[in-house]
C-alpha cells in the first residue's frame, strides 16, 4: 500500500517571519503600489474587526466572527481577482470582501441582524457569507459551470476553513470541478482551528492541500500570513483557471488570533503559548517591517494609512448605526418574487404587530 501522506506538496513563502524576502518577486507580481494596497486592506480589515468586537461588546452588534491574523489571504485574493469574478466566502473573509468593494457598513448590517447587509452595492454577483460550513463549495461549482459554458473569462473563487475540509460537500464540489475542468479556485484558509478542534484532530492528513488528490486537481500550500506569497500563488491559480486549465486547491497556512466568535472563549481550549507564538507571524507587522527595512514607506506614511482606515471605519459605523430599520413586513417581501396570495394575511398581521410595537 502507498502511504498517502507521502506526497510532496510544494510550500511557498516569499516574505519570511522576519519580513525578509526569501524568493525574488516574480514577473507577474507585486510592485510597491500593490504592496501598499495590500497593507491598506489588511489594516482596514483589522480596524473594522476591532471596531466590530467593540460594537458587539457594547450591545450594538450581534455575535461576530473576527478575522484577526488572517487578513493577508483576503487582501491578496481581493487584489488578484477581477471585478467580475465571483467570490463564495465564509463568514471570516472580510479582507477579500472589503478589497472587492463590499462596504464595512454592509458587513456590520449583516452581523447586526439585518438582511440588507447581504445586498451588496458592488460585486453584486458575489455570494453572501455562507454560515453552514462548506455549502458554498457546491454553489461555486454551479457558478463556475455557468462561466465555463458561457465561455466567459471569469473565475469563481471559493474560500473555506480547515474545518470545512471534513464536510462531504467540499469533496463533491472538488470532484465535480475536476471532472468538468471548471474555472474554480478553492482556497483553504487553514487557521488551525475549527472552533475548539485543532487541525490535527480534524484529519489525519499531513497537509490539507493533498486532499486535491481525491479530485485529481493540482494543489499546493503557501504561507497565508505572507501577503506576497498569497498574491503570487493565487494569481497564478487564477490565471490558469482563466486560461481554461481547470480547478485547483490552495492551502493558505494562517492562524486564528481571536476567539472563534465573540460568543466563544478560546481560553478554554487553546494553549496561551501557542497564541503568543503565533503573534510573531502577524501578517501586518511583517509587511510593515518589510516596508520600513526597504524604505518603501516611513512611519509617517504608515501612520497616515492607519488614520485613513480609522476614518473610513468611523464613517461606515455611523452609516450602519444610522440605517433606518427594516419594516417587520419586509420579512415577506423577498420570500418569493410575487408574494402568494395565501401569505398576504400573515404579512398584514406582522405589519400590524410592527405598528403596535413601534
Amino acid at each position: 500500500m502507498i502511504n498517502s501522506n507521502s506526497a510532496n506538496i510544494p510550500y511557498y513563502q516569499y516574505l519570511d517571519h522576519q519580513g525578509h524576502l526569501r524568493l525574488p518577486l516574480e514577473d507577474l507580481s507585486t510592485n510597491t503600489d500593490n504592496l501598499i494596497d495590500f497593507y491598506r486592506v489588511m489594516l482596514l480589515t483589522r480596524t473594522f474587526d476591532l471596531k466590530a468586537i467593540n460594537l458587539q461588546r457594547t450591545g450594538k452588534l450581534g455575535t461576530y466572527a473576527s478575522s484577526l491574523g488572517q487578513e493577508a489571504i483576503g487582501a491578496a485574493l481581493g487584489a488578484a481577482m477581477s471585478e467580475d469574478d465571483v467570490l463564495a466566502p465564509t463568514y471570516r473573509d472580510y479582507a477579500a470582501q472589503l478589497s472587492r468593494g463590499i462596504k464595512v457598513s454592509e458587513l456590520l448590517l449583516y452581523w447586526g441582524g439585518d438582511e440588507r447587509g447581504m445586498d451588496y452595492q458592488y460585486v453584486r454577483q458575489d455570494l453572501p457569507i455562507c454560515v453552514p460550513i462548506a455549502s458554498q463549495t457546491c454553489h461555486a461549482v454551479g457558478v463556475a459551470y455557468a462561466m465555463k459554458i458561457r465561455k466567459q473569462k471569469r473565475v469563481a473563487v471559493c474560500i473555506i476553513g480547515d474545518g470545512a475540509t471534513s464536510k462531504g460537500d467540499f469533496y463533491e464540489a472538488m470532484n465535480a470541478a475536476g471532472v468538468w475542468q471548471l474555472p474554480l479556485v478553492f482556497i483553504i484558509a487553514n487557521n488551525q482551528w475549527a472552533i475548539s478542534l485543532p487541525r490535527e484532530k480534524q484529519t489525519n492528513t499531513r497537509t490539507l492541500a493533498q486532499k486535491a488528490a481525491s479530485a485529481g486537481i493540482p494543489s499546493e500550500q503557501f504561507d497565508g500570513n505572507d501577503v506576497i506569497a498569497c498574491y503570487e500563488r493565487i494569481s497564478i491559480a487564477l490565471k490558469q483557471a482563466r486560461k481554461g486549465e481547470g480547478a485547483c486547491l490552495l492551502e493558505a497556512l494562517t492562524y486564528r488570533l481571536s476567539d472563534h466568535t465573540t460568543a466563544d472563549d478560546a481560553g478554554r481550549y487553546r494553549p496561551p503559548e501557542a497564541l503568543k507564538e503565533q503573534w510573531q507571524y502577524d501578517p501586518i507587522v511583517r509587511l510593515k517591517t518589510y516596508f520600513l527595512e526597504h524604505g518603501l514607506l516611513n512611519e509617517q506614511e504608515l501612520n497616515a494609512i492607519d488614520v485613513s482606515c480609522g476614518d473610513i471605519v468611523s464613517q461606515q459605523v455611523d452609516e450602519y448605526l444610522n440605517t433606518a430599520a427594516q419594516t417587520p413586513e419586509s420579512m415577506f417581501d423577498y420570500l418569493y418574487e410575487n408574494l402568494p396570495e395565501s401569505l398576504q394575511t400573515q404579512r398584514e398581521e406582522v405589519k400590524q404587530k410592527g405598528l403596535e410595537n413601534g
Partner: protein
Amino acid sequence: MTLLKTTEMNMVEVNLVEAVNRALSWELEHDHEVLLLGEDIGVNGGVFRATDGLQSRYGSERVIDTPLAETLIAGMSIGLAVQGLKPVAEIQFMGFIYSALENILNHASRMRNRTRGRLTCPMVLRAPYGGGIHAPEHHSESTEAIFAHIPGLRVVIPSSPGRAYGLLLAAIRDPDPVVFLEPKRIYRLQKERLNDKGEALPLDVCFTLRDGEDITLVSWGAMLVETLQAAEELAHLGVAAEVIDVASIKPLDMKTILTSVEKTGRCIIIHEAARTGGVGAEISAQLAEYALTSLLAPVQRVTGYDTVMPLYRLENYYMPTVKQIVTAATKALEYA
C-alpha cells in the same frame, strides 16, 4: 386558454413521463438559459426516460450527466441559478433527495430573502416519488410534507400528462425554487392529447377535476386515480363528489378548497404519505380554522400509515384504496 390558430397547434398523444420530456424539450429549445442536470439523464435519458433524447438534441453542456452526488446536484443548481441560468435538476428517486435538503432549505429557498432580491434561485428539482410500482427499497416514499414546510419554496405535483406539461413549464419559468414531484406510478398510466406549444399552467392553484355538491375529495399526485374512482363509485351510490387536485402543495390554494367545502360541508383528504404531519394535516387544520361552521362532518384523512414504506410485497396494504375513500365518504355522509 387563448384560441390558437391551426398552425399553432401541435397536438400529441403522450403519457405523463412523455409530457415531462416534452416540457423539458420545449423549454430547452426556447430558453437558452435552461439546462438539465442529474444522474444518468444524458446518454441514458434518465432511468424513467424523462430526459430521453435531450442530450443528443441539446448537447452535453446543457444536459449534464453529473457524478453521483445529490448535495452537489442541489448546490450546483444554486450556483447556476444565481448566475441567471435556469437549472432543472433530476434527483433520481425522492428517496435520495435528503442529502440535498441542506441546500434546498438553507440556501435555495432563502437566497432571494437573504440578499434582499440581489440574487435569486430560479431552479427546479424534479424527482419521481411514490409507491405502487414494486420498486426496490427506498424507491417508493412520499415525503412531500417535508418540503411543504419550507418557506420560500414551491412544491408542485402533477397528476395527469397535461398538468405535468403545463405545471413543469410554469415551474421552470418561475423565478423561485420549485420542488417538482412526479408520481411515477402514473408515469405511463394513460395517454392524453395535449398541445405541445409551450403553454404553462398557473402555479399555486388547485384544479377542480369533478364538480359535486355532497362531499369534497381533496388529493394530489397518483392518489387522484383512486380518488376519481371513488368519486365514480360514490356517484353510483347517488353521491356527488367534488374532486380537487391540489397540484401546488406549497403555496397552498386554500381558497378553492374552502369554497368547495363551504358548499359540500364534508371533506376527505387522500394522500399516500404517512398520515402524521402529512400535507393533509395542514389542509384539515385550515378547514377547521376557517370553515368550522360549514363542516357537517369531521374532515377525515385517508392516507398511508405512519410506518416505514414496506418493501413491495406489502406495499399495497400501505397504499390508500378506493374502498377506504368510499368508506370514509360514506361515514362522513352519515353525519346529519
